[in-house]
């Protein structure tokens, strides 16, 4: 079912349909404002929005925003959804009436789908959109005449300025209240079509001849048909030798022949299409040489905004959470047991923080991408990079996801919904997390200087760049491989309309951002809370009296003179972690990660990184008994250059040795191997949850986890061996 909105019997279901870029979403936003929810059509990852408003006389309306489509002979999953609903009168989303949004500046093209819908016997209002543009371009329309010829109400509106929207609402009310049966029809079927339609009608509860014809055309993929119904249709099509594709083209041409004169009669267009601003802008933006560079420039800008946004908002989230945690502690400490306070502050609130840190990034990224989409630029990027991305099993739209992945994979993966072909979309989703996201940066900042203590700043910066390059290569390489192994029968199309450049409509942009953030939070908070609670449990409890043992070990160390009394608290925290289940787990996996050069402490670091990769640093602070030092260093971090941060941690790490062999843990080989591991492994639970949500199955998330993990393991191992060999 759609979203979580309850629809009672009395609610009027109004479907909003039209070609892509006709301004459907704008009209939808105008009519419903914030009273909207995004959901998926059952069984497919096609997004649908449902909004609410009330007609003047009090009738409640559920407005369903269907995906844009060019005709009822669909080529993409998006378009198919529309046919599946309109061809099935018992579908829960089957509308009581339709509002068809058409761009009046290119009316002819839009009337194809409109006249098809007319033949389905659903009351339909034609909303001629973009009246403001029509006026500016000198296009004159006669709505009354058009309405008479098409036998349907016509309203001339502007989604942008809001012109005539009250009339549209009134037209909906009139049509809803009307007692006259709706009986518009447009297309006269030819003999072949009639025979098929009649045959279908004899076997099915026939609601309408054209709907019957559609069943025959689309029998192979309509999911509401039972196997028996499918077989019946198969027989009908075979015995009557129905040539579906040819008939579709025929029908389309006949419809054009029929409505072209109507458009000529009712819409006065300027005789030649002038060279417009859009053409002049495109001469530069899609230029064969400058175009790609300008795009990379734009993406770099997007990336930088998000990068700095993360630096700033990350700090806010950090201080807000610190404040919240402190407050909770003082509030709860007197009234509840220690472990309860600990669970709430380190388990629940930590999970809350895990969700919260992503919110500003998602908001910023969806803001910028929505802006680029609104002005019409994204379609150009798709055109320019389609060829290149197809070599790697993706399509032009994937480039936006990959580059957004440089900020954060979570919103990047959510953005892949614009990719029509399922295989190309899946590959994009699977490879995007290879791109180094902003959460990896703090880890790189610690590990690079530890791995190469004698190198200078310049070398470190190069290694840093190499980590990004590694991510890009891994993404493209795996795309190439996945493309070879995955089979898809779905045809892939580019055939894409490039919209006119327009100034953004801020209401659209704003509503998109709100929707994206709300969607993310509602999708991930449960699993994330679950995982953080589990991690909290693992690192707080262990076999036996963990706290007692830790206290004792710390006391022994201090007595033996290994540590000063002043760090007793930190020392105890470190031992507590060591004796906990997490510590045990770290030690259990040590044999597995030892070939890469890691010890059990790094094991714990890797495990805890599932919260978010940057948690590696704070875990290391605890392990090296630097918990209190860490907080101070975090605070001072703002004034230092990136590689100078976390100095006490880096000093400690550089000194540490393996317990058995007494060799240094952080040799260049271990450090570089760990860097490769962090660049390639899938260590982000939010991403995994989003991948599951977007693909509909845990299967793909698990596959991705295993694939990225194996690749990371093998390449880290090779790195470790190679560097050891050279050194």
């Amino acid at each position, binding site marked *: 079912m759609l979203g979580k909105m309850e629809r009672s019997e009395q609610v009027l279901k109004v479907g909003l349909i039209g070609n892509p870029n006709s301004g459907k979403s704008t009209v939808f936003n105008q009519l419903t404002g914030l009273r909207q929810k995004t959901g998926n059509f059952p069984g497919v990852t096609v997004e649908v929005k449902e909004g609410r408003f009330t007609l003047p006389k009090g009738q409640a309306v559920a407005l369903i925003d269907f995906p844009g489509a060019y005709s009822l002979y669909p080529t993409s999953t998006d378009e198919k959804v529309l046919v599946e609903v309109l061809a099935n009168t018992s579908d829960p989303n089957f509308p009581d009436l339709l509002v068809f949004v058409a761009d009046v500046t290119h009316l002819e093209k839009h009337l194809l*789908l409109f006249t098809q819908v007319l033949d389905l016997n659903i009351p339909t209002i034609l909303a001629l959109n973009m009246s403001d543009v029509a006026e500016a371009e000198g296009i004159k329309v006669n709505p009354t005449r058009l309405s008479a010829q098409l036998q349907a109400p016509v309203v001339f509106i502007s989604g942008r300025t809001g012109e005539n929207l009250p009339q549209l609402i009134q037209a909906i009310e009139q049509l809803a209240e009307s007692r006259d049966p709706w009986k518009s029809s447009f297309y006269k079927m030819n003999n072949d079509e009639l025979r098929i339609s009649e045959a279908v009608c004899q076997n099915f509860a026939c609601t309408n001849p054209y709907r019957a014809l559609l069943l025959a055309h689309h029998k192979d993929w309509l999911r509401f048909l039972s196997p028996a119904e499918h077989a019946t249709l198969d027989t009908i099509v075979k015995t009557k030798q129905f040539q579906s*594709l040819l008939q579709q083209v025929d029908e389309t041409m006949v419809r054009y022949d029929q409505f072209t004169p109507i458009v000529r009669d009712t819409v006065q267009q300027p005789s030649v299409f002038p060279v417009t601003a*859009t053409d002049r802008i495109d001469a530069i933006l899609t230029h064969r040489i400058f175009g790609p560079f300008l795009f990379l420039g734009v993406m770099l800008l997007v990336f930088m905004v998000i990068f700095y946004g993360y630096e700033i908002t990350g700090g806010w989230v950090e201080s807000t959470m610190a404040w919240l945690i402190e407050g909770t502690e003082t509030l709860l400490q007197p009234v509840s047991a220690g472990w309860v306070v600990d669970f709430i502050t380190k388990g629940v609130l930590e999970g809350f923080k895990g969700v919260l840190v992503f919110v500003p990034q998602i908001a910023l990224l969806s803001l910028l991408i929505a802006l680029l989409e609104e002005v019409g630029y994204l379609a150009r990027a798709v055109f320019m990079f389609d*060829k290149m991305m197809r070599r790697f099993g993706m399509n032009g739209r994937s480039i936006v996801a990959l580059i957004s992945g440089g900020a954060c994979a979570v919103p990047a993966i959510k953005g892949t919904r614009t990719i029509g072909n399922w295989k190309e979309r899946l590959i994009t989703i699977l490879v995007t997390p290879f791109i180094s996201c902003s959460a990896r940066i703090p880890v790189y900042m610690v590990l690079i200087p530890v791995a190469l203590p004698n190198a200078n700043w310049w070398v470190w910066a190069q290694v840093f760049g190499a980590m990004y390059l590694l991510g890009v290569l891994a993404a493209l390489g795996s795309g190439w491989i996945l493309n070879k192994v995955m089979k898809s029968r779905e045809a892939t199309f580019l055939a894409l309309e490039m919209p*006119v450049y327009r100034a953004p409509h801020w209401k659209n942009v704003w509503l998109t951002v709100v929707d994206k953030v709300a969607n993310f939070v509602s999708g991930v908070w449960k699993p994330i809370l679950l995982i953080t609670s589990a991690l909290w449990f693992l690192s707080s409890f262990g076999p036996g009296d963990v706290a007692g043992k830790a206290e004792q070990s710390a006391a022994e160390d201090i007595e033996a003179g290994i540590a000063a009394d002043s760090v007793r608290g930190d020392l105890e925290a470190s031992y507590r972690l060591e004796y906990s289940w997490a510590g045990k787990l770290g030690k259990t996996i040590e044999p597995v990660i030892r070939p890469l050069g890691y010890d059990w402490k790094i094991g714990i670091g890797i495990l805890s990184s599932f919260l978010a990769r940057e948690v590696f640093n704070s875990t290391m602070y605890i392990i090296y008994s630097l918990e209190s030092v860490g907080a101070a260093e975090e605070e001072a971090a703002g004034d230092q250059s990136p590689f100078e941060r976390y100095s006490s941690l880096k000093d400690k790490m550089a000194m540490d040795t393996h317990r058995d062999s007494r060799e240094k843990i952080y040799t260049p080989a271990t450090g570089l191997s760990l860097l490769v591991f962090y660049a390639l492994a899938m260590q982000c639970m939010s991403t995994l949850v989003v991948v599951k949500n977007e693909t509909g199955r845990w299967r793909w998330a698990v596959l991705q986890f295993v694939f990225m993990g194996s690749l990371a393991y093998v390449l880290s191992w090779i790195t470790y061996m190679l560097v050891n060999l050279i050194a």
Partner: protein
Amino acid sequence: MQRRHRTLPELKASESAQAISFTDPSLACKLTAMGVLPGAIIEMVRKSPFGDAFYIKVDGIRLALRSEEAQTILLTD
């Protein structure tokens, strides 16, 4: 013998020609629905940076097509 018609990819940048028919019915369906009709004048605006895709203009509508898609459009000479 039938004369071979030109196809869309053979147009040079900013050259125009009239479409006569399509060779692939399923693409024909898509293209006609997007406003590319037999008889329409198609202008080749430019080719994509990495080749293999075309920016065309038909009746004031701007479209991007892959070369496989463009090859199915036959033109008059």
